[in-house]
């Protein structure tokens, strides 16, 4: 089947952080209205809602969110459904929305997500996040999300023969970089905070799951994000700077212990990113910058290798050498990433798309990536259970 080219009309995102006064639907509405204002369409043009949310049941006692969210944004009656794939919820929603337009099911849809984990508190938040690990074997042992990447960090150190203290210093550089960028992004949870961390600050902060400290981890966050998608043809009629969807990929895996040593090679991510490169007709070398799922410092390193940017075992060096900094060859997380900006799980994927679109349109003035034409997102759900990669560009697919 011939696929139509798809483009982004508008993007929106709430400030990330603590939102005790807004419901999941109200938060999403704030992000949606920002996206809608810049889209030059009428509300009635939007035909369906693709909504990402991870743990509304546990944080807000609320499920079946599609209808409530559609009603909140004034779109009562349209097909609306919730997508749940842990941290990749809104990226999965985005990919389904993209295919719906590409294949002609709809001409214009809204996709996004919202989540309220900060408001839920650490104990409920940690339990809610832990629903994304294997629900029988891994949870009974008390495996948590920081735990997953702590296991990965120790295995990475062992397999690639990098002494753990050396690896921890390189991991700290990820935190320093992402906090530095997050601190200058007004929508970040840590705006104006932690912009000048030192390696010792990261190493000596509170131990969460050894060897990961608090500054190795992204925070618990409330927030929402939204993207309005349409056909490339329509977008070119409506706005000056459409951002085109060039390629998407998705993959999955079972329990982490069943992935064995592959957990540091993130095989589903390799599959997913290769799928996206293939659809876009591009290679890792063509990517100008990436929004990577840095839920933990070591996660960013492992991801950068699995996506084909660095050899296995070399991602940690790339960070330490500044390759992934804003003025390096491959800027990673110029908006602060999950660590600096925050991680409202179900909203994270489309928040990455928000940043990529803003940078490609030259509207991201806090930390611009010079001459960027192609950007990519990487969203991880659970312990490699779901992987989504999306490639966006300012020119149509060749």
């Amino acid at each position: 089947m011939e696929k139509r080219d798809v483009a982004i009309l508008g993007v929106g995102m709430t400030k990330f952080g603590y939102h005790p006064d807004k419901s999941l639907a109200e938060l999403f509405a704030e992000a949606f209205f920002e996206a809608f204002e810049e889209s030059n369409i009428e509300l009635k043009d939007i035909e369906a809602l693709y909504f990402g949310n991870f743990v509304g049941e546990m944080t807000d006692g609320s499920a079946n969110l599609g209808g409530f969210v559609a009603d909140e944004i004034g779109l009562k009656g349209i097909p609306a459904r919730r997508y749940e794939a842990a941290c990749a919820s809104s990226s999965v929603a985005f990919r389904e929305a993209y295919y719906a337009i590409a294949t002609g099911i709809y001409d214009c849809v809204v996709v996004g997500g919202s989540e309220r984990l900060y408001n839920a508190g650490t104990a409920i938040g940690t339990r809610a996040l832990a629903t994304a690990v294997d629900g029988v074997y891994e949870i009974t042992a008390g495996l948590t999300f920081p735990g997953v990447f702590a296991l990965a960090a120790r295995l990475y150190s062992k397999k690639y023969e990098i002494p753990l203290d050396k690896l921890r210093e390189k991991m700290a550089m990820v935190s320093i970089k992402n906090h530095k960028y997050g601190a200058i992004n007004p929508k970040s949870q840590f705006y104006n905070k932690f912009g000048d961390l030192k390696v010792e600050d990261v190493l000596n902060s509170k131990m969460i799951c050894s060897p990961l400290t608090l500054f190795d981890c992204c925070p618990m966050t409330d927030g929402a994000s939204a993207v309005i998608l349409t056909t490339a043809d329509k977008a070119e009629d409506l706005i000056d700077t459409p951002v085109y969807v060039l390629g998407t990929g998705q993959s999955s895996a079972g329990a982490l212990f069943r992935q064995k040593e592959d957990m540091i090679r993130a095989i589903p991510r390799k599959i997913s990113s290769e799928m996206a490169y293939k659809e876009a007709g591009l290679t890792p070398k063509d990517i100008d910058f990436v929004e990577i799922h840095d839920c933990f410092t070591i996660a960013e390193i492992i991801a950068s290798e699995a996506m084909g940017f660095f050899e296995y075992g070399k991602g940690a060096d790339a960070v330490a050498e500044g390759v992934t900094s804003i003025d390096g060859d491959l800027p990673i997380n110029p908006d602060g990433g999950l660590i600096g900006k925050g991680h409202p799980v179900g909203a994270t994927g489309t928040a990455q798309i928000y940043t990529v679109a803003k940078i490609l349109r030259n509207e991201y003035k806090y930390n611009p990536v010079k001459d960027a034409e192609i950007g990519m997102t990487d969203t991880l759900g659970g312990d490699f259970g779901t992987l989504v990669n999306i490639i966006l560009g300012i020119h149509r697919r060749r």
Partner: protein
Amino acid sequence: MFKEFFDALLEGKVLGIKCKDCNSYSILKSTCDNCGSRNVEKVELSNKGIITTFTTTYVAPAGYDKECPYVVAFVELEEGCWLVGRLDIDAKLADEMGQDLIGKEVEIYGKEFPNEPYYPDKKRRVVPMFKLVS
């Protein structure tokens, strides 16, 4: 099926499957971890293994906080498959030993812990425990 695994574990046995197509072993499951085949037979796996990685957890989810700090570990059994469980040593000692724990031999047994509201088995919660073989 998971009930069978934990019943056996409480008797010190680790249940798994052997794949008749690719000859690899998996912890009890409907299909082979390696190739997805249903052509598998139930087998008793070795109850000894080697620590491949671990972490000491200082911030636990609701329902697990009273057990904190605890050490979660992955262990590779003699048959090649991995199992997740808890290391039966003091959390402080685990962090002192650090990377030296990786590669150490353990014996596997099952232990019951207080249940929590979301666990799939509403009657009990059994944890695979790993005891260092000195």
